[in-house]
């Protein structure tokens, strides 16, 4: 005989199974929440390449080379121009306009980076030796995957003469 379960109007909804599920999801999500120090800029002009490296990036001054501009800590410094690649005319290369460049040096970028170093040095001299503030010359580079080496070299050269000599290329882990 078919048994019918009677549900009275004052019966509570049984939410134990839902609570079980929620608890598992909560633990899973808490575990997968990112704790990375470095923030990646999101833009249509910036697509990071993939890597097999598994080292996490650490915080430092950030230079972003997009297809349309160079940014330092989120602030636009130089606009870039694109021209056809002489080797493969169907592809584009990106470069700093000639009037914005002196040899390999990009003066506007140099000024901003030198200012950053000066600010850290001033802070270090005020705090004193025991304050733990010291200019380490570290720089995070977020570079679009299509940027040619010539532009990357000019940025690294400019950073080098502004005393930034330790580069971290931020990439997406495969």
């Amino acid at each position, binding site marked *: 005989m078919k048994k019918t379960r009677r549900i009275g109007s004052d019966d509570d909804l049984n939410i134990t199974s839902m609570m079980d599920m929620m608890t598992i999801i909560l633990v899973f999500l808490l575990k997968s*929440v990112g704790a990375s120090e470095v923030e990646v800029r999101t833009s249509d002009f910036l697509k990071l*390449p993939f890597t097999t490296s598994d080292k996490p990036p650490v915080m430092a001054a950030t230079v972003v080379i997009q297809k349309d501009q160079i940014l330092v800590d989120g602030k636009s410094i130089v606009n870039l121009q694109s021209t056809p690649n002489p080797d*493969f005319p169907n592809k584009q290369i990106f470069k700093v306009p000639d009037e914005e460049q002196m040899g390999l040096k990009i003066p506007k970028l140099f000024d901003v980076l030198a200012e950053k170093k000066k600010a850290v040095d001033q802070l270090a001299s005020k705090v004193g030796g025991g304050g733990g503030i010291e200019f380490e010359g570290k720089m995070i580079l977020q570079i679009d995957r299509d940027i040619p*080496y010539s532009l990357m*070299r000019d940025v690294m050269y400019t950073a080098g003469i502004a005393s930034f000599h330790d*580069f*971290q290329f931020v*990439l*997406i882990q495969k």
Partner: protein
Amino acid sequence: MAKRNVRKDDPLNLVPIMNLVTILIPVLLVAVKAVTLAMIESKLPAISNSPSPAEAKPEEPPLALKIIITQKGISINKESYGFLWPEGTPPQYTAEGAPPVIPCKNNRCENEEDYKFDELTTKLRKIRAEAESQNRFEDSSTNVVLLPDKYIPYRVLVRTMDAARGDNDNPLFPVVAFAGGLN
């Protein structure tokens, strides 16, 4: 004073917890990492006061690998040829205008996929093994200098660095530096 009468068989009131969890789950879902970031380190070479290599050149210098990346393929510096071909360098590589050690199809590398990175890893493994067997692999030999042509895109450089790094169990050349480039 009013006393709240709680019956022993009353179910536990889970509504506040449910409220909290329902808010937490969307917040966490938004904050979940969609991508994992990684990094590759590179340092500019330091200036030292030690004698220049010309003054103190040993007869059998340790391995100092350079990888040259062009639109035709990937090569290594001539000084490292002896580690790749210990029995003797093939004649076409000693001639002027030698082809790349790992050429692309039709000598034209238009896309990232045209470069043969697996072959590069295999050749680098051979070079490291040969240098170790000749006792010419020192601490500085884990450095590799990249010499890319000026229009080589960044993604190709990253793939080359990945190929040269090896893996955690069998590291190859994990310390990367960039040279000024070919032109």
